[in-house]
């Protein structure tokens, strides 16, 4: 995208007889219109892909067909035309509508929770696995206590016999 040359244009305007504020306003509008024509659908989608629909939750903005999303996409186009970066545009939406318009929370606490918790969970799962292995490695191949087994086998036999008797 080409940037507007405001200084050069304003230098020309100094020689003009029209009041400076009015010229500035007209030029700003002209620049915006010029750049708007250059903000392609692909550029808009690149930003919209990182945002979410304000109406249908969990639907990425670039995919949504609702009127609200069309308006947001047009606003992104305008902001791109005004020379804002992708991140600045996203930040402006987050500032107005909150963290739910993006897929990765901007709030530092929420961002930390998003990233750290799954890592902690993975580390915990690996830790439990490691402890299990350690316990296994420390132990020898062994069977459950024979007394327990004998008791359970006796109970099992008793139950079997009861079942057979009941079927008769």
């Amino acid at each position, binding site marked *: 995208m080409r940037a507007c040359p405001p200084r050069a244009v304003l230098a020309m305007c100094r020689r003009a007889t029209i009041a400076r504020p009015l010229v500035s306003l007209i030029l700003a509008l002209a620049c915006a219109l010029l750049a708007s024509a250059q903000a392609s659908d692909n550029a808009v989608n690149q930003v919209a892909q*990182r945002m979410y629909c304000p109406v249908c939750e969990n639907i*990425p903005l670039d995919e949504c*067909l609702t009127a609200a999303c069309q308006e947001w996409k047009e606003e992104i186009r305008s902001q791109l035309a005004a020379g804002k970066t992708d991140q600045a545009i996203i930040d402006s939406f987050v500032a107005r509508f909150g963290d739910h318009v993006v897929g*990765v929370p901007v709030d530092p606490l929420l961002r930390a929770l998003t990233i750290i918790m799954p890592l902690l969970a993975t580390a915990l*799962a690996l830790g439990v696995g490691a402890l299990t292995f350690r316990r296994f490695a420390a132990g020898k191949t062994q069977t459950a206590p024979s007394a327990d087994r004998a008791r359970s086998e006796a109970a099992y036999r008793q139950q079997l016999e009861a079942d057979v008797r009941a079927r008769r």
Partner: protein
Amino acid sequence: MLAELGLAALTLALAGALYAIVACLYGARTGERRWLQSGRNAALLTCPALLLATGALVVALLTEQYQLSYVYEVTNPGTPPLYRFTALWGAQRGSLLFWSLLMSCFTCGAIALNWRGESRLMPYAIPIMMASLAFFIGMSLFIENPFDRWWVLIDAPVEQQVLSSALIPPRAVPPTEANLRAGAEGMNPLLRHFGMVIHPPMLYLGFVGFTIPFAFAVAALAAGDLSNSWISATRRWSLIAWLFLSLGLILGGRWAYDVLGWGGYWGWDPVENAAFLPWLVGTAFIHSVMIQEKRGMLKLWNMLLVIAAFSAVMFGTFATRSGVIDSVHSFARSEVGFPMLAFWAAMTLLALVLLAWRWRAGELRDERQFASLLSRESLFVLNNVIFIALFVAIFWGSFGLPITSELFLGKEVTIGAQTFEFYVVPLFVAMYILMGIAPLAAWGGMTVARLGGVLRLPLLLTVLVVLGLAIGGTDLLVAALGYGVVLFAAIVALFEIARGVAARRRTLGEDSLRAFVALFGRNQRRYGGYIVHLGVTVIGIGVIGSTIFQTEVQHTLDRGETIAIQDYALRYEDFLRAQAVDGRLMNIASLVLLRHGDEVAHMRPRIDEYPQLPMSIAGAHSTLENDFYVLLIRGDRQRATFRIYINPLVNLVWWGGLLLILGTAIAAYPKGRR
């Protein structure tokens, strides 16, 4: 008449389920077999009763009985007969009834097949299954009744004149047929797709299927029979539930690809994830259960996994149906949230309390300890660690963080695909590596040198393929490595099958085909498992290709203009606005797709305008190499804007899914009696 019939059948089913609970528990307490038999018969009665209730609703849907508010809500006179039938699961009330019917079918199957073999577990398994069933029937009867009818109260003020009720209110008359037909709303447009004919029933079968292993596990805990009998009773049921859940997930992905119009098949939507979570736990269980069967180990862990799988199903059902997490799937919001949450908590708590009781009594002690860290059982434990880490990470992103943030920080958050991919991708890489190593490791343990020896050939083949990709075609190292990891698992699965065939040929002198068939017949579980692994690797190749190498552009074309993308060219031919028989307005663009200058397809992407929402239906040209996928964004006869995707290897996702289903079916297929 249909409403009365449905209500009576539902009431009978509820009574049967409740009676079965009481009779079986009383029979278990007193040891009187006749009570158990009576309870069993009552449990078996629920299936025909629910079949009758569901049949009444289906007839009402097909014969346009709009006085039933459910029929009025999900169909209209323009709904085609096929979608009238699928409207049974098109909204909350019908889908709850359908859920109950499927659960009763599973329950009756489990009772009929295990009554003799598992008579010690039945007095407790039947009440658990019937408690789940009674809960869902109760929801249908008291909260989300599909047999509610519209009534006009003669003496009421105008704004209170119309109400929906299952019973006939005093001084009420039915609305006129003309009014009902004119006002009928019709099905959610997203559900008017062939995929919706199969996807929900498969998913429901997967969900309700996990009730059976859960019931037998809790029965084993209650009865104190902690041998492997509950596992032998439910192993096949777990596989069947897993098979249907896998099929439901794959069909859901296909539906999203065709209907949601975003060029992808998995969006990490919370409700997609709600179905994926039980699948992850179920996968961990069908692996770790082998360790208990073969080595008598991980008894406590397997119990925990079965409880977690059922709990994940119930939580997912709660999340989907209560609207607690919004998504495209949350079409079915209602007052069911709190009862479902309470039921989920109660069942999970009951199971955990029983588990803790038996564990404290030392009855879940393993019969053997792990002899070596380098053994198949150790690698299976690692596999379980990965699946549980995936479960926790996805649960946290889908439910944990959004709910925590809203409850305690008052902020709504959306966790998007890029966040999930950040922590899920490394875990999947680890899963594929283990999928390659574990089948080659021996039970009980082996030396590093021996494992290295058996890994040598598959690793060498993998390295050759990766080098071939890096030199020949793939310009991204990450992709080449990704393909390498996935192919390693595939090569090992093929290597193991080839080794088995070679062994039979050598020792029994069979020809290759006979040896191949006999191999699967003799050890269907093991070799069915390898086919599942192959399916998962084919899916992996499809996912890598269609995500890393996806091309996406949006372009506006004048009529007659052509755009070139890679070796394709797309020409905008025409635009048509038409009205379909069901009343929706269709905006259809007509395009011609050329490849290397030759015409290969005519494509008609369109936007359907429904009163509820517009829907973008893609035009696609599919080959095994890639999908050329076009969405109409806006347009008229002069010019139109299209979003174009080229998704390489995306069809392997579906073909891999079919392989996975085939392998699971082989593994779960009952062996003939000898």
